[in-house]
């Protein structure tokens, strides 16, 4: 099936570049380890043979659309990626009409690591509830109709711990953080011109790479994605010191689902839960 995808993507890319529909096709090519895919930017029809699609195509390419400055661009989009696309359209960061979406029904991608050959699906793919892209101009593969129910056992395990244990756990995790901001740079939901963590005035977080500042950074990063995170889990994949960021994101994903019955990125005109309200809702606050 994947080789089939690869062929279809190449053909579509060639067509789009040749008839001038787009200036650039953002897809995947095989990286220098000869195993794992990496993002590829194709400008010339002659280069389309570089394009591939296989179960190492982890990257959320939607993030790159933010750099295309309105240039007509085609992009290869998986189910989770398509939710990011919806998010950015809803937040007026992209214009649908200059994006050509090559949607692929995603078989799930395997654990990623340079020169590592793996057949183990990533956690987010095991838990995935959106294999079929929600938004596409051409769809490759057969839409998945049956999606599993939400599963938050990982979150539940954390919650089973005592407050002190949790504090200790996160303390240890964020001590490793080197504030490289790869999580932010990879996240399609992070596009602030001036991220709060780097603002000098007000100085929300000091530049100290130290537990306190790191905890603040990781907490707010997660909170700024509350009701917006589309669970592509790129942040966790790119973290060089393996901080389990998905736990924070998924905790909030669960709360947003429970409290507001909301799933981010499911449509391009959805209103995020923190910029709307219901008068009579009970949220266990001040009651």
């Amino acid at each position, binding site marked *: 099936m994947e080789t089939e995808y690869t062929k279809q993507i190449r053909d579509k890319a060639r067509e789009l570049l040749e008839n001038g529909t787009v200036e650039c096709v953002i897809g995947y090519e095989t990286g220098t380890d000869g195993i794992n895919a990496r993002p590829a930017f194709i400008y010339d029809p002659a280069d389309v043979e570089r394009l591939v699609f296989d179960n190492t195509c982890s990257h959320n390419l939607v993030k790159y659309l933010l750099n295309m400055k309105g240039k007509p661009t085609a992009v290869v989009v998986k189910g989770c990626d398509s939710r990011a696309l919806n998010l950015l359209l809803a*937040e*007026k*960061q992209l214009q649908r009409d200059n994006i050509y979406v090559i949607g692929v029904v995603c078989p799930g991608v395997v654990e990623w690591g340079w020169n590592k050959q793996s057949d183990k699906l990533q956690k987010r793919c095991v838990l995935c509830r959106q294999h079929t892209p929600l938004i596409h101009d051409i769809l490759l593969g057969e839409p998945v109709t049956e999606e599993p129910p939400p599963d938050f056992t990982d979150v539940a395990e954390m919650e089973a711990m005592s407050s002190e244990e949790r504090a200790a756990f996160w303390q240890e995790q964020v001590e490793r953080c080197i504030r490289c901001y790869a999580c932010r740079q990879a996240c399609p939901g992070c*596009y*602030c*011109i*001036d991220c*709060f963590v780097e*603002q000098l*005035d*007000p*100085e*929300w977080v000091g530049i100290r790479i130290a537990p*306190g500042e790191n905890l603040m950074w990781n907490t707010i990063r997660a909170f*700024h994605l509350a009701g917006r995170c589309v669970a592509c889990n790129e942040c966790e994949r790119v973290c060089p010191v393996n901080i389990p960021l998905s736990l924070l994101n998924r905790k909030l994903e669960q709360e947003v689902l429970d409290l507001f019955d909301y799933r981010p990125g499911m449509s391009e005109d959805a*209103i*995020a839960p*923190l*910029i*709307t309200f219901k008068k009579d809702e009970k949220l266990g606050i001040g009651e």
Partner: protein
Amino acid sequence: MSRIGVFICHCGTNIGGVVNVPEVVEAARHMPLVVFADENKYTCSEVGQASIRNAIAEHKLDRVVIASCSPRMHENTFRRTVAAAGINPYLLEMANIREHCSWVHSDSRDATSKAIDLVRMAVSKVARHEALFPRQIGLTKRALIIGGGVTGIQAALDIAAAGHEVVLVEKEPSIGGRMAQLDKTFPTLDCSACILTPKMVDVAQHPNITLLSYSEVVDVRGFVGNFEVDILRKAKMVDYDKCTGCGLCWQACPEKIPSEFNLGLGYRTAIYIPFAQAVPNKPVIDIANCRYENYRRWKETEQGPEPPQCRICEGVCPTEAIDRTQRDEIITEKFGAIIVTTGFKTFDHSVYGEYGSGKYPDVISSLQLERLMSAAGPTEGEVLRPSDGAHPRSVVFIQCVGSRDDKVNRPYCSKVCCMYTAKHAIMLKEHDPDVQCYVFYIDIRAGGKDFEEFARRAQDETGALYLRGRVSQIYQKDGKLVVLGEDSLMGRPVEITADLVVLATGMEASENAAEVAQKLNISYNAYNFLIEAHPKLRPVETQTDGIFIAGAAVGPRDIPDCVAHGSAAAVKAVALLSQDSLTTDPLTSVVDPMKCVGCFACREVCPFNAVEEQTTRDGRIIASINESVCKGCGLCVVACRPGAINLRGFTNQQLLSEVLTLVGR
């Protein structure tokens, strides 16, 4: 480097009795940027204020912290004080060491160290204050009134009398509203039409008033002093410049339609005025029911049988005023103030099965009875029951129909029903001495000038029988109505055979009240009654500056209350329109265009529609705050992830600095 002065108030012993003020002063002297600190017995006294002014001059202070009572008490006082000494009034910060400290803490040590913290917070905050300047904006000296009932009429006349232009928009062909439908008014029993119509005529004739009848507000933009309103003018098919209101057309029109004004009792024609004293006293053509308009509609498709063409009105009109070319049009007008007086409608009693669900013709609403009593009504003032036109002898009144009843989601009291029922009992007796009235009530609410006396008169003089209790069922039995109820005082069931049953139907907000409120972005309650800015202290204002509310649109009210509220709203509007420019509070949000990403989350959360779009030189569409509309709540600041928005007076920097004086390594 700013030079901060700190002034600690003893407030007699109120603060000084608990807080060690000298210690606080000493601590303040060593705080960053503080160049002067002193204490006063009473800072708010003239002496105290003078000492501040002197210190400002003497020590060249450019920012001031006053530690005394709550800023809710004296912030404005002290802003004036520092302003008088040449410091921008917004470079002042207060530390609340009375209400939040000395009055609630008895331990002097704790209270003192808390006072020191509060002063330190204020110092760190004031250091980050910026000079702010109120802005002046122009305004349109013109008022819009939505709804031409007695409330709107009163408001219009008052504003016009004050010399300002008024546009009065009424959706019906005539102004007058519910009051025009009434026969007499309680407790004075003067004729409703006789006292209302002169006012209606005044409206028509006043040079400052433009009356837009048969019109509706479709959209409202802008803000206080500068509203822009789209008004739909429905096609009347009659050229009012030519029409003299002679009446030949509506006398000649062959079409008969049940009269809305008479609540289905009696008929009107297709070209019509709703009632004899209508203002304007010129007809409109009811397009839905006009025979020729039907023909024109048929002509477009030519499906079905060809209807008659009629056009009799055009034939009889001596001035050729009928103008079939008229179409609905939308006009846009500018206003400085808007008054909403959309009034009420009566409760539809057909939901009450036990009262016959509106099936029995002789079970009528109180407003229908008004029409039957009115000399200008369908029966020319003779009370004849609808079924057979007979004179009713036995009449049963039922109170609280659609009032004080959770079953029909109308828990509130409609306030006027007790009184108008008393009026009905009295009037029926006058119409026909042989009438016997029975009134089923829960309890009689006669709070108001001469009300109690009036209610008594109904019972004592007219012999109306008041029965405390509910009616369980009404059914028809050989041409009469049998009313089954209970007399809870006697504790026994009663059965009354009646010729006529009158239901005291309660008041409801008019059907388009919510819609209008939404267009104006003002709030309304669960029953679509409009909500006041403050129920006690701002009864005719709304949360939106420049928009006022009055009359029964706000809640059940009788005529004198409505008139009073109409005048009250008018005064508020006049007070606004009498200014040459409006001053805006500078404590508003402001956007940093370098940081805005144009996601417009701010626009989603702003309760006041203060967020507008602006295009930068490099073509990005970003947010900007209309400072005339912004109320400074700061919701947008929190919604703004990129940190592009900040709230003057409560900036992120200021709140952070306050926190960091309290905690932090």
